C-alpha cells in the first residue's frame, strides 16, 4: 500500500510551473506517515552461534558452548545515507553485516529491506568483501560481467557491455579490463570489488572492512575514491570499519557497538560535515575533533573491557 506513493509525488502536470517548483517540498511531508523513512530496518536482532554438545562432539572432546554474538539490536537506516558500524574487535560487526547480506541466519528478530523481511542472500544488496573475493581466473571485465550476467540474465549484450564499461570507468580502472586479479595491486583489486558490487545496481551496498587489507597510503587514496563515487551515486551504504578517520570521512551516521559477546548498539553519532568532503580539510570542521575524541574514548573503553575480560 505504502509503495503506491509515487503516484502522489507526481501530481497532475497541468499546474503552472511556479506551482510545480513548490510541489516537491510539501509532498515529501505528506509522504512521511505512509512510507517509513527507513530503507533497512533491523528489529531486535540476536545472533547465537549454536555450540556443539552432542555425543560425537563429547567423544572427540570438541564440545563448545552457545555463543551470543549480538543481542537485541534495533537499527533503522534511511535511504541514501552512508552508515558506518564501528566497534572493538570481535563485537559481531561482520556477523550483523552477514545477516543483512543474508549469508548468515538470524537467530531471533527480523531485518526488513523496503519493508520486506530478508530471507536469504539476494542481488538487492551488493557486497564488497574485505579480501576482495575476486575470481582469480576471470579478468577484471569478466569478474564484473559474471556478476551482471548472473543478476540480469536477459540483458542485451550491448547494454551489458556498456554497464561493465561504465563501472570500470567509475572506479578508474579503464585500461586494465583484460588484466587478471594477480596482476593488480590490492587497491586495484578492491576497486574491481566495488565496481562489481555497484554494477548490479543494488539498493544497498554492504562493505565489510573494505580497506582493511590495504596499506595506509592506498587506504587513504581509496577512501577518497569511495567518497567521490558516493557523491555521484548516493546509494545507501553500510560499512564495517575499524578506522575512526575513515568513518568520519565517509559516513552520515556512525553506529558504535559495544564489545562482544552479546554486543549491542551503544550510540549513534550524526556526522554533520558538508559534502563533498575532502580528507585534507575535513578536520577543520568545528565538530570534527569532539566527534573523534568521543569515538576514541568509546572504542578505547570497549577495547579495554575486552582485554580485561580476556585476562579474567
Amino acid at each position, binding site marked *: 500500500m505504502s509503495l503506491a506513493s509515487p503516484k502522489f509525488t507526481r501530481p497532475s502536470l497541468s499546474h503552472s510551473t511556479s506551482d510545480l517548483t513548490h510541489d516537491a517540498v510539501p509532498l515529501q511531508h505528506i509522504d512521511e506517515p505512509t512510507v517509513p523513512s527507513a530503507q533497512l530496518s533491523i528489529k531486535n536482532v540476536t545472533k547465537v552461534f549454536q555450540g556443539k554438545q552432542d555425543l560425537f562432539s563429547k567423544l572427540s572432546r570438541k564440545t563448545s558452548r552457545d555463543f551470543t554474538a549480538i543481542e537485541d539490536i534495533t537499527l533503522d537506516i534511511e535511504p541514501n545515507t552512508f552508515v558506518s558500524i564501528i566497534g572493538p574487535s570481535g563485537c559481531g560487526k561482520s556477523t550483523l553485516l552477514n545477516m543483512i*547480506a*543474508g*549469508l548468515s541466519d538470524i537467530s531471533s528478530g527480523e531485518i526488513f529491506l523496503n519493508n520486506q523481511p530478508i530471507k*536469504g*542472500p*539476494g*542481488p538487492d*544488496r*551488493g*557486497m564488497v*568483501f574485505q*579480501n576482495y*573475493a575476486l*575470481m*582469480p*581466473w576471470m*579478468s577484471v571485465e569478466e569478474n564484473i560481467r*559474471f*556478476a551482471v550476467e*548472473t*543478476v540480469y540474465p536477459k540483458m542485451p549484450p550491448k547494454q551489458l557491455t556498456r554497464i561493465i564499461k561504465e563501472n570500470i570507468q567509475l572506479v578508474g580502472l579503464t585500461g586494465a579490463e*583484460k588484466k*587478471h*586479479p*594477480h*596482476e593488480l595491486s590490492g587497491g586495484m583489486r578492491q576497486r574491481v570489488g566495488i565496481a562489481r558490487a555497484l554494477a*548490479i545496481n543494488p539498493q544497498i551496498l554492504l562493505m565489510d572492512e573494505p580497506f582493511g587489507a590495504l596499506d595506509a597510503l592506498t587506504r587513504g587514496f581509496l577512501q577518497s575514491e569511495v567518497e567521490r563515487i558516493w557523491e555521484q551515486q548516493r546509494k545507501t551504504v553500510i560499512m564495517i570499519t575499524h578506522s575512526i578517520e575513515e568513518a568520519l570521512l565517509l559516513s552520515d551516521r556512525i553506529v558504535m557497538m559495544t564489545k562482544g559477546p552479546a554486543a549491542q548498539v551503544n550510540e549513534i553519532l550524526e556526522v554533520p560535515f558538508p559534502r563533498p568532503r575532502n580528507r585534507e580539510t575535513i578536520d577543520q570542521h568545528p565538530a570534527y575533533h569532539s566527534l573523534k575524541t568521543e569515538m576514541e574514548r568509546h572504542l578505547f573503553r570497549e577495547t579495554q573491557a575486552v582485554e580485561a575480560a580476556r585476562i579474567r
Partner: protein
Amino acid sequence: MAFKGTTNDMTLSNASLNKLKVSDSSQSPWLNENVKAAGLFLFSLALFLGAWELAANMNWLTKGMPTASKTIEELWWWSTNPFFDNGPNDLGIGWNLLISLRRVAIGYTLASLIAVPLGIVIGISPIAYKAFNPYIQLLKPVSPLAWLPLGLYIFRDSELTGVFIILISSIWPTLTNTAFGVANVSPEYLDVSKTLGASKLRTIFKIIIPAALPNIVSGLRISMGISWLVIVAAEMLLGTGLGYFIWNEWNNLYIPNILVAIFIIGLVGLILDSVFAAFEKFVAFGRQS
C-alpha cells in the same frame, strides 16, 4: 589471448629475477645460476659415461654389461630406425612406444572421464564425500599389478587388460584431488555467488569447477605419471609395447637395448609431465596449488 599475456608476464618476471641474481652474485653474465647448473650437468654426465666406459672395458662390471659407447650406438640405431616390423619379437621401438602410448591414452582418458565428474560430485556433497571415502582409501594403495590377474581373468584379452590396469590405477589421484579441490573452494567465492543469487548449476560451472581446476589438473598430472609407470610394468606380462620390449630383450639377454628402452621411457615420461606442468601453470592465475 589474455592467457598468453599472463604466461609472458611470468617468463618476464622470471627473467628479471635471474638478472637480479646475476647482478648480485657475479659480474659476468655468463656465470649465472643456469649456466653453472648446465656446466655441472654436463660435467657429471661426462664423468658418469667415462667411468662407465672405463669400468666396462676393464671388466669391472658384471659379465655382459655393455660399454657406454655401445649403448649410445644402440640408442642412436633404435632412434634412427624407430619404425620397422619383423613380427612381434622384432618390432621398432617407435611402434612399441606408440602401442604403449595408445594403451595409456585410452585407459587414462577413461579414468579421467570417470574421475573428474565423480570427484566433483563427491566434493560438492559432504555426505558423498564421507560415504565414498572408504572405497577410495582402501583401493588407492593397491599395487596396479595386483589387478593384473583379475583383469586377465575377466577380459581374457591382453589389450583390454592393459587398458583396465591403467584405468584402475590412474583413477585415484584425479578422483581425490578433484574432490579435495571442489570441497575446499574458498567460501568467499561461494559467498559472492550467493549474494548475486546465482543458481546451483551456474555456481558449479562458473565458480566451483574453475576454482578447483588447479587441483584437478595436478591430480591429472599425478595420474598421468602413474599410468606411465604402470604400463611398462603391465606390458611385461602382455604381448607388445615398451614393457614387452624390455622383457623380450631380457629373454635375448641383450642389455644395451634394455638400457635404450629405459632411457626412452624416462624421456617420454619427462615430456608427458612437462606438458601437464605447463597446463598447471596455465590454469593457476597466480595461485599456488
